[in-house]
Each structure stands twice: as C-alpha cells, then as structure tokens.
C-alpha cells in the first residue's frame, strides 16, 4: 500500500502547543524523536515489551511505540525532557545517580516515568510492589537491585517530608 495522506494534529507536548502533520503509521515515540527532536524517549523493542519508550499521555504512562501519533490529536504528552525541566523528578534523578541505578542509561527515562507513577500514588511501597511495577521496563545493566533501592529511598524520603 502506498503512503497514506497525512493528518494534521495539534497537541500539548511538555506544556508547549504543537501543530504537525503526521502519517497514520507514525508511532508517538518516533514522532517525538524525529519531528520534535525529543530523543530522551528511547526506541527499543517496538512491540511493547521493553518500556524504553514510556511517556505520559493525559497524565498516565503509556508505551510510545504502541500509541500512534495521530491518536494524540488534542491530547497532552509529557516526556522525560519536560519532567526533568519541571523538577518533578529531581529527587528520583539524584537517587538514581547516588545508588548507581543506571549504567548505559538507555532504560532510565522510561524507568523514571514508570517509577514516578508508583511514587505519586503515595506511601512506601514494598520492594515486591516496586519490582512488580517496573516489571515492564527492561534494564540490561544493573540487575535491577540498585533501581529498586533508588525508588525505595525516594518513597521513604517523600513519606518523611509528608
């Protein structure tokens, strides 16, 4: 089948209004990386298994490779760039660094967005709960232990601050 007509979409990305034209088959993560230059969201497996492409759509995390850009017309998208700039992840980023919770960093943006959704629910989740929550995000460097340590330490610190 030949290339299909592009669709005009408007959406908010990291608080900025974006108007672009996209082919229907363009996934959200490819759109973010290639049309907008937001390369913090990574393309790994492209079938929903690895979690490297995790972004927020209307406030909840989704797979950037299993969402089409054309479906995001009128919606709100947030990426690691926006959440990093806003300071929302500052303590989590510091904890990842302090605990050596990353080596190559490929999984880190997706891992942080996933962790932040669990942390935002409040309380101090058990290590088993943390592991289950990040089960959809592959890391091939750390063995996960340091990542669980980092997430747990942030949960404890945030709980103490109330």
């Amino acid at each position, binding site marked *: *089948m*030949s*290339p*299909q*007509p592009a*669709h005009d979409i408007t959406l908010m990305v990291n608080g900025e209004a974006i108007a672009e034209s996209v*082919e*229907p*088959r363009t*996934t959200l993560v*490819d759109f973010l990386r290639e049309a907008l230059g937001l390369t913090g969201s990574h393309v790994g497996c*492209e*079938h*929903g298994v690895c*979690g490297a492409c*995790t972004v927020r*759509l209307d406030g*909840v*995390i*989704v*797979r950037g*490779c*299993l*969402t*089409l850009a*054309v*479906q995001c017309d009128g919606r709100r998208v947030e990426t690691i760039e926006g959440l990093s700039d806003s300071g929302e992840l500052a303590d989590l980023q510091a904890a990842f660094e302090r605990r050596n919770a990353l080596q190559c960093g490929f999984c880190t943006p997706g891992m942080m967005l*996933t962790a932040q*959704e*669990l942390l935002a629910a409040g309380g101090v989740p058990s290590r088993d709960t943390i*592991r*289950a*929550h990040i*089960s*959809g*995000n592959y890391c091939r460097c750390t063995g996960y232990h340091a990542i669980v340590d980092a997430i747990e330490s942030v949960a404890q610190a945030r709980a103490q601050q109330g």
Partner: protein
Amino acid sequence: MKPAPFAYTKARSVEHAVELAGRDGEARILAGGQSLIATLNMRLSRPTLLVDINGLDGLDGLALKDGAVEIGALVRHAQAGRSDIIAKNAPLIAKAIPHIGHPAIRNRGTIGGSIAFADPAAELPACLVALGGEVVIAGGRGERTVKADDFFTGLFETELGSDDVLKAIRVPAANAATRIGFAELARRHGDYALVGLAAAARAEGDGLADIRLAYFGVGATPVRARKAEAELARGALDDAVAALADDLDPPDDVQETGAVKRHLAGVLLRRVAKQLMEGRQ
C-alpha cells in the same frame, strides 16, 4: 520495525465504525492498540485501514445491570482494576487484571480489545469463559449477543466478522456462594502466561458445584477442562489433576514443551482448587 502504511479514520459512532469496517475488508478496529499496534510494528498484520473507536460515547461504561456486570469495550484495564463494581461483583476479573501486561500497558489496553484480539495466552478471554459470560456485538445486521463458550473459535479467531464491533462484555455478578480462583505462571510478571487457569464455582454444602475451569496458554483458545471439573465436583483433587491428561493437549511452543505445560497445569489446578475451597477471594 515500522508498520506498513495504512489509512486512519476516527469513528464518529459505533454505527459509523461498523459502516467503515464493512466498506473495507482489510480494516481493523483500533481500541487500546496494545496488541494490534505491536503486530503492525512487527508487520505480522497489514490492514489497509484502522478505524479508531477511542473516545466513542457509550463504550467506556461499567455497570451492574440485571444481575450482571457489563463492561464497555473501551474500559481500560487500569480503570477496571480500580473499580469497586468489579472488585465486588466480578472478583475473578479483579484478581486477573494485575497479571495483564505492565502498568503502562494497563493504562491504555482495553477489556474489549483483549477479548476481540483473543490471544490464547491472555487472561481475560479465559476469565470470560470461566464466568460463563457473553459478548455484545454491533454489526451490519444489528446487535447480537454471543456466549463466551461459542465466541472463541480458533487461534486469534472469534465470532467477530469483518464489520463487527465488540461493544461490551457481560459476566454474571458474584453472590455469597460464588467462588473464584486464578493463577498463572510466566517467566516475567506481566508477560503472557506459560500456562494459566481462571476458575469459577458455586459453594454447595461442603463442596463445589457448577465448576468451570478455563485454561489459557495451552491451546488455540481458552480451554475448558471438563473432566477435571467433574472430578473436582466430587471433591477428588488428585483425580482432577490426573484428568487433565485427557482435557488438555498443549502443543510445544517457544517457551516450553507441551509435557511441561501439562505438568504446570496440574500445579495450577492444586493452587486454584485451594482458592476455590478457601472462599471468595
């Protein structure tokens, strides 16, 4: 990989979706997309048109109606997982949902999509069969209802025709006598199961009646283990496990051999039988 080109249309109503799908034999309905878009990316399917039903009115309801729980096709797994209606009236589904994919998948994937896609290793098709539920379908010739036992017809094949849109599923609401059980084995939490079992029964005296055991990951569709159901109704757990040799014939796949899957099916039956006897989960 990247998907082959396709056209995209946002449906304005269920009727519009039915009309669009009927006009193009190679169209696919796009709901949560958590399975469909993966198959597009892998070029395992190449539809010419995607009909997006996200946002359509009347498909994301969740309600208790006439003794049944009706779940709209566009209800997301995460939404169902948070629902008090589901927790109270469809506890088997509540117990299964944490096993479906991962948080980001559950935020986007839909109940209707899981049923329509009919992956033989998926949790919800087996739950629907175990509960003796039904599927509400809108099609070119109007609306119809299909029983779960008749809905799943083959590998990724269902009673849905090319111009059909799955509107909702219905399962009988649980009552004080309802017993449910659920267990699965997967290499990683959230992955498709090596083998899984969804079960429902009714407490009667010291035992169980109306037992329905629906295995997943062991065949082309969810598979009822009918001989094991009969043995379990007699209270004979060891005989029920032995009967699985007749009930199930799992093929070898990339994850495990059929022989290992059959063994694991027995392990799961013992776990699930315990849940059924312990009472309502």
